[in-house]
């Protein structure tokens, strides 16, 4: 097919449509979900006109309807609005925890991968210890010390998930360090630092994009698990874990209070996972 014939203005939408069709459906849906939640986090008022805190006692515990797509809670607050407004904190926890976890993991992983036997041994031992603390346990201890808040959730989940990432990054750094192109770069006479900067860091960090995406969803799930244990963000915050915790007692009378925020969590975790895998595949595809 010759491109010149297609390159007329009339065909631009057709070309765009063609392009769009090439995007795989699942990642596209996932991207749309993520986009929705990003908008919800940054500008929730665009997605709802209600106030997430405004109580309306006569309209408490209304089932989902056109007026209240997710129903209302025990104080008559619109659940959809609360889920939308809760996105910011939930996403913040997800991003923050993953970010923190990655920061720790990158430092540990890189030092471990590059630092020689002693550092590697030391860090590996400490990771071994951290591994012995399951995320939930560590988070529980942590929240008990510092009290429930967004910050403590971020730190708790971040710390809890860091060792896994650290190990992965270490493996990645080692793999890149021993790769053919790093050897080739050394053979060309590049200095150690140049090789690290030009090859080791960028290539070792490349798969992290996908991992980060996967991690965000999981962090949100972990954090809401803490809320379930009563160690979450305080009410009346519409953080999703808090919504779930509050909704649990109504499960037999107002199922939507438990199901809707849960679906939001599942949706974001799933979307993040799908996107993560998609990215991973793309990156791997670009390599082999």
């Amino acid at each position, binding site marked *: 097919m010759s491109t010149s014939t297609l390159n007329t203005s009339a065909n631009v939408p057709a070309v765009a449509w063609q392009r769009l069709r090439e995007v795989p459906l*699942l990642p596209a849906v996932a991207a749309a979900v993520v986009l929705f939640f990003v908008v919800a986090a940054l500008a929730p008022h665009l997605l709802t006109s209600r106030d997430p805190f405004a109580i309306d006692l006569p309209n408490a515990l209304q089932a989902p309807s056109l007026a209240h797509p997710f129903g209302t809670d025990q104080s008559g607050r619109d659940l959809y609005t609360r889920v939308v407004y809760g996105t910011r904190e939930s996403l913040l926890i997800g991003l923050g925890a993953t970010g923190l976890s990655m920061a720790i993991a990158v430092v540990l992983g890189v030092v471990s991968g590059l630092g020689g036997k002693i550092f590697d041994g030391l860090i590996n031992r400490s990771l071994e210890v951290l*591994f012995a603390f399951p995320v*939930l346990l560590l988070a529980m201890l942590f929240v008990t*010390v510092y009290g429930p808040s967004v910050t403590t959730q971020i730190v708790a989940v971040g710390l809890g998930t860091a060792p896994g990432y650290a190990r992965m990054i270490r493996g990645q750094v080692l793999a890149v360090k021993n790769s053919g192109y790093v050897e080739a770069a050394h053979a060309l006479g590049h200095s150690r630092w140049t090789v690290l900067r030009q090859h080791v860091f960028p290539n070792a960090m490349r798969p992290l994009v996908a991992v980060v995406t996967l991690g965000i969803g999981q962090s949100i799930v972990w954090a809401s*698990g803490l809320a379930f244990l009563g160690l979450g963000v305080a009410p009346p915050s519409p953080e999703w874990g808090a919504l779930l915790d509050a909704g649990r007692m109504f499960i037999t009378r107002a199922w939507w209070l438990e199901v809707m925020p849960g679906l939001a969590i599942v949706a974001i975790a799933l979307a993040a996972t799908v996107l993560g895998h998609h990215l991973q595949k793309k990156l791997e595809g670009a390599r082999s």
Partner: protein
Amino acid sequence: MSTLKHNTGLLLQDPAHDGGASAAGGGTGGAANHPGRRRPRPNNLLTSPGLRRAGGRLLTAVGVVWAAATFTFLIQALLPGDRATLLLNQLAGQVQQRTAAELAPINAKYGFDDPLIAQYFRFLGDLATGNLGVSYQLHKPVTEVIGDQVGPTIGLTFASLLVAWLISAVVIAGTARRSRMVSSVASGLEAVAAGLPQYWLGVILLVVFALNLGWFPVVGGTGLDGLVLPALTLGIPLAGFLGQVTRTEFEKGMDQPFALSARMRGMGDIGVRLRHVLRHSVLPGVTLSGWALGSLFSGAVIAESIFSRPGLGKVLVTAVNSRDLPVVCGIVILIAAIYVLANLLVDIAYTLIDPRLKNS
């Protein structure tokens, strides 16, 4: 024909291995022709490398447990608020300051007045002699508290792991490298399962299968029928994770020449999947299981609380909330020990599944 020598296998990164790592049609005929200045290696586990490895493992284990205990001690000792006040208020259910006269006997009894370092060494000394102390709340030796409750939790943990493995193995073996439709639906389900919050799943399972359908008891207890829903609650998300890592490996395995070889000697597709490829695909999942065991153990608190099961999880949450340091430490140490043990099991499982790893 060169004489046969013991082979180092694929996994050694032996720089002497000619021709680079990937041998696409190059001159690498395996590593069979390694220089022969090498003593044959006995396969007995009790020889010095084996002992050294066991010794190293033991040291690591002790290190992990020690670090876990120390960490827990610190975190609990550094908690805000005065521990004696806490104990008194907790007994009375009040939130108030306490007079020095009230606090003195408590401080004396538990030695809260001693310097932290003295408390720490006393704690370590007790620990070394297997004395985990007596619970502040239950007035009972911690070993007994744990002993009472560990059974159901361990049962739940292993049942969940089993459920997770069964689900993921069946789904993977049935759907990987099938038509695009089937495998994408299956991997979609895996992603959903992996993203399911356990407690949420648990509540939904409880409401649907116990309350509405009445298939399972609402209050599980320790019976077998009461184990199903809790095990599913913890097992389904884990199955999603296992599925995700196993699927990749399984697909790799299906693409391996040995799978084709097996087909070519007359084996059916299902046979190849179950007899050959599955075994190759479980290694990453097995690694994950070691980690998962510790995670399940602490996650048990969620299932225990939803399904009203006895178990350590509940004890742990209560103890953390009431700062029952001896109990918290005891459980943390137990989890650390389980983690160490789980990893030992993982190592054993590794060499059972992939005997090549015995040498590396």
